[in-house]
């Protein structure tokens, strides 16, 4: 399989993944190629697979430039960077990394809720800067018992609900259609959900319908005591609206793992004590990244050996 060209479109520095791919295939790291057009022209014939992630995948333009592309294997569960319609049209297989990262993302969502409400990062800074010697840190607010509203009740949404329940948090949710097998309270719109919970979590896939699902109306409904947690995708949120709401105090706080234009984060947020800002680490543990890499490589191997794919989407 060494002659099979695999194009990694995302700027991934995961050494284990790179090593596993290089062992089996001819790996091209698109991100570090200066003249991409020239490169594609010269190498397009040999490229039969793309490895993408949350930051870059395979859009229509790229797919068009790769006539021998057979499979896109994403180092993520989200598929928003892949033109699925184009892949379907061309008969290109698509795989992702579901389940292995569910627990880590859910753990992080709860970690963000706790960190925001209990001002964990702020008070750590308070100690490290020597301020504790001058006075006590102020009171924060309790997490147990706060109502949690979840947008998207897939694997990750359900895992978040299960954990929040252990803190006696009443759970409500919004999805496209109400789920009959679920005991949580359903709201037919995000605005109603936001108006009826204290902590709102974005846990749905990013699609055309869910782009800017968190807009001014939703933020205002969540309100000056409400907290937004985003472990979905940056474009789920109207970021300028979010920033102004936080700066003006119209929103109580936010825990954000994802942003509109990663790795760029609006600097107005850096001075706020009611936000926690993370560099897209939802699945960022040694254990899970290895499992994800194994799935990416495993799917590619299965495809090129004509075996059933491990985690196919298309």
């Amino acid at each position, binding site marked *: 399989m060494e002659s099979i060209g695999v194009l990694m479109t995302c*700027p991934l*520095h995961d050494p284990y993944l790179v090593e596993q791919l290089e062992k089996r295939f001819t790996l091209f790291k698109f991100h570090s190629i200066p003249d991409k057009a020239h490169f594609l022209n010269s190498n397009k014939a040999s490229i039969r697979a793309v490895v993408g992630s949350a930051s870059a995948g395979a859009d229509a333009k790229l797919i068009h430039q790769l006539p021998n592309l057979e499979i896109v294997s994403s180092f993520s569960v989200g598929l928003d960077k892949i033109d699925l319609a184009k892949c379907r049209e061309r008969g290109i297989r698509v795989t992702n990394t579901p389940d292995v990262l569910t*627990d*880590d993302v*859910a*753990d*992080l969502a*709860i*970690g*963000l809720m*706790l*960190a925001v409400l*209990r001002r*964990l*990062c702020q*008070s*750590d*800074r*308070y*100690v*490290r800067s020597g301020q*504790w*010697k001058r006075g*006590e*840190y102020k*009171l*924060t*607010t*309790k*997490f*147990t*018992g706060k109502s949690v509203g979840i947008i998207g009740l897939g694997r990750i949404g359900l895992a978040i609900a*299960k*954990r929040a*329940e*252990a*803190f*006696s948090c009443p759970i409500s949710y919004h999805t496209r259609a109400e789920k009959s097998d679920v005991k949580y309270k359903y709201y037919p719109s995000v605005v109603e959900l936001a108006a009826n919970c204290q902590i709102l979590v974005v846990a749905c896939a990013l699609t055309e319908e869910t782009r800017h699902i968190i807009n001014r109306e939703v933020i205002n409904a969540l309100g000056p005591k409400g907290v937004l947690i985003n472990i979905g995708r940056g474009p789920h949120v109207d970021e300028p609206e979010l920033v102004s709401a936080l700066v003006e105090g119209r929103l109580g706080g936010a825990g954000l793992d994802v942003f509109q234009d*990663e*790795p*760029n*984060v609006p*600097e107005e947020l*850096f001075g706020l004590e009611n936000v*926690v*800002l*993370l*560099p897209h*680490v939802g699945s*960022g*543990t*040694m*254990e*899970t*990244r290895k499992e994800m890499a194994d799935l990416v490589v495993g799917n590619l191997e299965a495809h090129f050996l004509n075996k059933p794919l491990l985690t196919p989407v298309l």
Partner: protein
Amino acid sequence: MASYANQECFQSNDDLPIVLLHRLPSFNSPLKDILQPHFHLLDPADSPEPASSFLSCHAKSVRALICVYNTPLSAATLNLLPSLELIVAASAGVDHIDLEECRCRGIIMTNASTAFAEDAADHAVALLIDVCRRISTADRFVRAGLWPVKRDCSLGFKMGRKRVGIVGLGRIGFEVGKRLEAFGCSIAYNSRKKKPSVPFSYHANVLDLAEDSDALILCCSLTEQTRHIINKDVLEALGKEGVIINVGRGALIDEKVLVQFLLRGVIGGAGLDVFENEPDVPRELFELDNVVLSPHRAIFTSESLEALHELVFTNLKAFFSNKPLQSVFQIE
């Protein structure tokens, strides 16, 4: 005015039950305003008289005392209160009170466990997730503008499904276990006595618990027996991937050894809310990314203080009506 204290009180001060407010002058608790309409409060800290003479003159018949936060309550002070039957400790820990003297005198003590347990447990879990997933470290990384420069923050470690060992399975320890189970963690504990009704596995000593755990969470009170219960041997048993979380008291851990072991990588990380000599925190910890530090805030939410005030009020009312008390602390 809090709703539980809303009942009108028409008795004159002389008819109201006398309660002694035992506090350091710097501790100005809202308790005074809440309790004053309902009890005849004696507040030596507010008097120009020295405390011992105040108590000798005014407190001989006092049956109930509120100990505000960790105001030290010594045998000497207790000796000036011959009629004392009840101490309402407005705190979770009681290591600042002479428990031996209370035991000898048969004084009943209540603490604030029921008001604080959930917040303390939340804080312990928060620290564990933060240490494992490097939340505070990553937040610092982003705020320093490093994400566009360095692209990748170092990876954290999976927090769920860890083997968690809880030291001290009182109210707080139990609430911690209950929460962490939902993250797929297996829960074991060490306590003075085995608790048969609890679904967690018991270890007879802390060393065994540390051997079998990926994370140790300290939720016990500080006594002569538990001082430095986390020592060199226990930390070595916990191991280089092990994490220790302390929401009890600083002196539960041999702090000098802990700092050295963190610097040398003998243990994997620590989340510390308490220290041996607060507010002094060993400066060596400030450089570490596998450590999260908080300034003794595990129970300090506005909701828990509300709950504390209500608990103090309710217990005092119950005492003077000969009704059962809540959150009684068993002095052993």
